[in-house]
């Protein structure tokens, strides 16, 4: 596992996300109330970018079919998404946001 610098904290506004690509892995980095989290960017249901989704109550809603995932745990919240989304550890050092993959 290696830490990858993915963003400055100021780059991602609250309840917003940034998409980054680390190797072959598409990652969505979220800011939830000042805390940063990272998940696989590609929905488990269909090919869509979760970083383009709507964020509310700690969940991200897929922009394609409105399937929802808990951003912190990756837990799928019900139809049409049944498979959880992968999550990645995030570390904030000063104003640098690192994702470990």
């Amino acid at each position, binding site marked *: 596992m290696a830490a990858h610098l993915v963003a400055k904290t100021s780059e991602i506004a609250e309840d917003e996300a940034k998409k980054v690509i680390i190797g072959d892995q598409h990652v969505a980095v979220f800011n939830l109330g000042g805390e940063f989290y990272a998940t696989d960017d590609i929905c488990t249901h*269909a*090919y*869509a970018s979760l970083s*383009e*989704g*709507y964020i509310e109550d700690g969940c991200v*809603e*897929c*922009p*394609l*079919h*409105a399937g929802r995932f808990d951003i912190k745990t990756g837990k799928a919240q019900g*139809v*049409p998404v*049944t498979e959880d989304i992968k999550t990645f550890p995030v570390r904030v050092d000063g104003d640098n946001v690192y994702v470990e993959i």
Partner: protein
Amino acid sequence: MSTLESIVIIGAGHTGGRAAEALRGAGFAGRVVLVGEESHLPYERPPLSKELLAGTMELEKVTLNPESYYDENNIQLLLGISAQEIELGLGRVRLSDDTDVAFDKLMIATGGRVRRLACPGADLHGVYYIRDINDTLLLRPELRDGVRVAVIGGGFIGLEVAATARRRGCHVTVIELADQVLARVADPAVGALVADIHHAEGVHIVTGASVERIEGDAEVAEVICTDGETLEVDVVVVGIGILPNQEIAAEAGIACGPKGTQGGIKVDEFGHTSAANVYAAGDVAFHYNPILKRHLRLESWGNAQNSAIAVARNMVLDPVAYAEVPWFWSDQFDLNLQVAGAPETWDRLVVRGDPAAKKGIVFYMTGDRVVGATAFNQGREMRFLKKLVETGAPVDDSALADEGKRLRDIAG
């Protein structure tokens, strides 16, 4: 309710599958029988004209649940079997294998079948349709680099097939009867935006024309259009709409909507048909929408899923109206197109962002209300677009057009 009660669902597509799941989700412990004509487990159809056709999605990925799910949840699957007749008085459905299955409650989720081309040559080899997995798997190997494809019909299915075929290196011509593509679901100006995106990708679009005949010696060779244009082709794909599979209901005396493409089995806002204990959902249901205050039939992923869930719950729990703003979406090239509402009329359009550059929204306005919207790569705004249509709250054109004003604030 007795736990011995038996529910039969006719149709094991997306709607039937989600309905069975929702019955168990609602705590129904009786018998659930899912009868489906296709041999496949219940699946979602959107990938059939996109990822599955392109070969970028595995077949297993389109199914709702693995086979084990049905065993574990005691859902009896009768696949490869069609329902022949509903015997309302006897409370049973006669099946194509000469058996019958008894029900206390019945859901009809028979969906639709493709409208077929009726012109001379329509039965030649090389004419394809897309409705089920088998159709897609038959067409897929034909869409090779350099193959000449004529797509009949410039609706969502036709344009999605055109985009997929183009990406696979085919030479593609779309033939649309109306003056613009997407004529059934969009303003001509919106259709023109989408047509331009196809032009830029090298798709040739012919509008205001239909197919007079297809020529060929066993295999398709030429498509002759009514405007005189002749296309040399290797493959013809037809996407000219579907017809609701309502006959089994009509023959049982259950009320249906007007004949033709609208048609469908008439249900109220709870999914109840004119017959006691008989419900319908999905593409086949000509349902009352309390938001739009009219009956309509929808052919969409969202309706297939959400009407299934709502109506299944109404079969076993206290009824709650199925009341959602219609929602459609389509993927073509790098464009995700989403539509909120199903307006029949509007008096003007308001544009936000730059739809021509594949990032923006077109609002359909009636007076000071949003009655519909088409979003170009703006999926995250869909919930607000639906909300604007649902509430019918008065809004200013200038606010909608101003990207500096958030739609979540405008929608309230």
